[in-house]
C-alpha cells in the first residue's frame, strides 16, 4: 500500500484537476485506512461530487466527508472602517 502521504497528495491532486470538482480548497488527511475531507462548499451536490472523486482516487479507503456546507446567508451588519 502507498504511504498515506502520497495517497493524500493523489486525492488532493484529483480534486484540483478532475473536471467534476476543480476544487483547491479542501484539506485531505489520510489516517490508516481512513481518508478525511475537510473544508467548506456552498452546494450539497459539490460536497457529494468531492466525495466521489476522492473515493475514485483512493480505492479501498473509507472516505469521511467532513466538508461543511456553507449556506450563503443574507448579508449582516456593515463594518465601519
Amino acid at each position, binding site marked *: 500500500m502507498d504511504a498515506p502521504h502520497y495517497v493524500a497528495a493523489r486525492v488532493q491532486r484529483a480534486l484540483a484537476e478532475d473536471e467534476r470538482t476543480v476544487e483547491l480548497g479542501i484539506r485531505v488527511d489520510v489516517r490508516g485506512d481512513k481518508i478525511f475531507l475537510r473544508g467548506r462548499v456552498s452546494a450539497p451536490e459539490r460536497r457529494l461530487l468531492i466525495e466521489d472523486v476522492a473515493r475514485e482516487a483512493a480505492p479501498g479507503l473509507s472516505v469521511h466527508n467532513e466538508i461543511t456546507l456553507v449556506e*450563503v446567508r443574507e448579508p*449582516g451588519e*456593515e*463594518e*465601519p*472602517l
Partner: protein
Amino acid sequence: MTQTRVAAVADIHMGEDLRGRFRPKLHGIEDRADVLLVGGDLTRHGTIAEGRVVADELRDLPIPVVAVLGNHDYHSDCEQAITAILRDAGVVVLDDEATILSMNGTTLGVVGGKGFGGGFAGKCASEFGEPETKAFVRHTRHIAERWRHALSGLDSDHRVVLSHYSPVKDTLMGEPTEIYPFLGSYLLAEAADEEGADLIIHGHAHLGTEKGLTPGGIQVRNVAVPVIGMAYTVYRLNGA
C-alpha cells in the same frame, strides 16, 4: 460627510448548476451598499459558458459592479472572452488598472486585478535560478508595479484595491502554511502601502479568515464566500 458603503464578495464559483442561485441574494443590495466589488474566481473552470452565467447573475444591478478575475477564470484560457462577456453585461472588469466611480457626491477609486503568489516577506520566492522560478516571481512583480502606477495616478476621495490573491498572511489563517506562496504575495501589500489605500479586498483563500492588516496599516478583508458565509459583506468607508 462623505461615506461610501462597499459591498464585497469573492469566489462565487458559478457554473450552470448554480445559475439563478446567486442573483436573488443580491436583492435589495442598493439599500445596503453603493458599489459591489467581486474579487475573482467567478467561475469554476473558466469556460465561456460559465462566464455567461456570471454575467447574467450580475447584469443590471441597481449599483455599479467592479470585478477582477481569479485563477479559476484563467483555467480554460478564455479569460479575455470572459472579460468581454462581463463588460457587455455592464460589469467593470479591472486588469491591473483603475476605475473611478462617483456616487452621492463622493468618488471611489478602485485599482485591481487578479494578483498572484510568491509568498510573504522572509519566506518567499525570489527572482533567481531557473527561468520558471523567475517567470513566477516576475509575474507578481510586474502586477505590483502596475498597481503602484494605477494608484499613484488616482485622484478620488476613497481608494480600494481589489485583488484575487492575498496581500497578507493574516487573512490566510486556517490555510496550511505550506501553500502560502500560492495564495498571495507581500508585493501586492507593498504597492498599496507605498501609494496608500483605505481597504484591500481579496478572495482565493477559501479556508482563510476575513480580517487582516498590511504592514503599513491598511485594512484587508478576505471575502471568499466560504469565509464570509454570505452573498457579500458591507464595509463603510467614512469621511475622506
